[in-house]
């Protein structure tokens, strides 16, 4: 078989990164949303862009705690993605790479194999972890031996050490904090302190994306955030969208409001940096786990002695949460302070933190051995699902 492109589907719990390897990836929300304003139709995936009033959006998500649970929702979203409306594909001619979460449960794995061979009639299929694709991408560029991949996504943050291209399972660490927890926490504290926004997950997620940053000196920033407005460099107002003149809210300096505009604003002080702080101190909201830098060290310490030095030199960050300004520097500084002095520490933020694994899929397709990683329809019909468990290291 020699094909010019394959179809890559990085099936995240919040967004799907999808496209033919010969084109640019599309980012599609992996959910069905219902709007208060439009009673007739649910919005599937990117259809939400057509929604005029995104207040009070109701989410129906296929993933729960990072695992594919609601198959009816996922099937609807996939059908939309594979249709002409989004990103059409013919699986008879095109190989498929699809990502799955680490330690994906056996029955979900079986269901994945079944649905893609029987429902979508794939010819060749590669099921793989997104961290594997990211590590492959990084290794092809750096030519290194060992990598620590930090995937900070919607449902949780995974830290996975790789030694010579293979994941070292004893070293995998999961922190149960992801973008969803951050948004929900922001929603909770804003609703208590200022304005009830409990129904506005979609809008508050945008507030989080537009306003939050990772503090380099947490207690110092707390002191600044306490000061009165004229001396306070952190306090900002967030102008909320009203869906008539403003479609997306924005951050602005604290100014005397223009009464005529009747804009609704949120005053943000310590919220701006105490939200991303949860990734570094989950215990701040009562989740009894280590933060990212500590877990990186904990993970590396469980690896063989001779690889530790190389692992510290190749720490790779990707995923939506790594987009917070200051994220990389904070991880670097804390890992540096906890690592042994005579080791070098190197922390890299992926150039496109959202699509980095997808780009890795593009590279793995060009690997001369690509088809030996895949499973074909004939093999599936011959040997069934057990072969999938042997071939795919999920």
């Amino acid at each position, binding site marked *: 078989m020699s094909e010019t492109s394959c179809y890559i589907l990085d099936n995240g719990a919040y967004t799907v990164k999808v496209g033919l390897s010969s084109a640019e990836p599309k980012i599609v929300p992996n959910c069905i949303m219902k709007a208060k304003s439009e009673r007739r139709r649910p919005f599937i995936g990117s259809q939400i862009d057509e929604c005029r009033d995104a207040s009070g959006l109701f989410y129906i998500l296929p993933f729960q705690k990072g695992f594919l649970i*609601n198959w009816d929702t996922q099937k609807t979203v996939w059908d939309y993605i594979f249709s002409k409306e989004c990103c059409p594909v013919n699986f008879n001619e095109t190989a498929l790479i699809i990502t799955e979460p680490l330690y994906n449960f056996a029955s979900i794995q079986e269901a994945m194999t079944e649905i893609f061979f029987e429902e979508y009639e794939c010819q060749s299929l590669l099921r793989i972890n997104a961290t594997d694709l990211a590590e492959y991408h990084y290794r092809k560029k750096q030519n290194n031996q060992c990598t620590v991949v930090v995937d900070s996504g919607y449902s949780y943050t995974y830290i996975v050490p790789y030694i010579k291209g293979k994941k070292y399972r004893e070293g995998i*660490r999961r922190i149960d904090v992801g973008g969803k927890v951050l948004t929900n926490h922001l929603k909770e504290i804003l609703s208590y302190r200022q304005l009830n926004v409990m129904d506005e997950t979609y809008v508050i997620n945008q507030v989080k994306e537009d306003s939050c940053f990772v503090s380099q000196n947490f207690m110092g920033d707390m002191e600044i*955030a306490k000061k009165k407005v004229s001396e306070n460099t952190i306090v900002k107002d967030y102008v909320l969208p009203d869906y008539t003149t403003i479609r997306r809210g924005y951050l602005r300096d604290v100014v005397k409001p223009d009464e005529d505009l009747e804009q609704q604003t949120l005053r943000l002080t310590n919220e701006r940096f*105490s939200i991303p702080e949860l990734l570094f101190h989950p215990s701040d909201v009562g*989740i009894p786990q280590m933060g990212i830098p500590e877990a990186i060290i904990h993970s590396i310490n469980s690896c063989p002695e001779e690889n530790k030095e190389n692992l510290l030199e190749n720490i790779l960050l990707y995923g939506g949460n790594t987009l917070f300004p200051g994220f990389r520097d904070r991880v670097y500084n804390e890992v540096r302070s906890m690592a042994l002095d005579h080791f070098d520490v190197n922390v890299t933020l992926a150039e496109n933190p959202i699509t980095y694994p997808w780009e890795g899929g593009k590279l793995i397709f060009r690997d001369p051995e690509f088809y030996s990683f895949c499973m074909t329809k004939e093999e599936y019909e011959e040997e069934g699902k057990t072969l999938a468990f042997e071939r795919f290291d999920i």
Partner: protein
Amino acid sequence: MAARESGRVKEAEKRRILDEAARKRRARKAVEALEQDNFHEDPHADLVMSKKIPKFADSNEKPTRKKKSKSAEYYKMRFRKTFAQLVEEDAAFRPDPPNYLSAQAPPSNFPDRHFCAVCGFPSNYTCIPCGARYCSVRCLGTHLDTRCLKWTA
């Protein structure tokens, strides 16, 4: 002579204090709330979305494919399992670590930090009845008026 009486001491004896179990239950509920997809109810729950209504945008051609695609509803029934069931199943499938449960990051070696439940700034004081943290008398007042024992679990 009657014993000396202090209004404050009397008051304190009457005051309800949440026990350890209730505090833990509250903390667990707070963490669970962070996992919710939606806070509100489905706005269209009472609407019946009819699949029979033709979508006029679609072309009139009959689908030519022989194989009929299965409905989303079929897969919902076919692979119906809750998260808790799957975790239990995994314990049988991958009984020895490393597995899903063993990968969870352990508690931090650094002490917990405390923040005011009202304003979010570092706090030095603990509310006696419920154990929440506060930073100033003003925040304590807000806390007692709004949350402290108002919705006791």
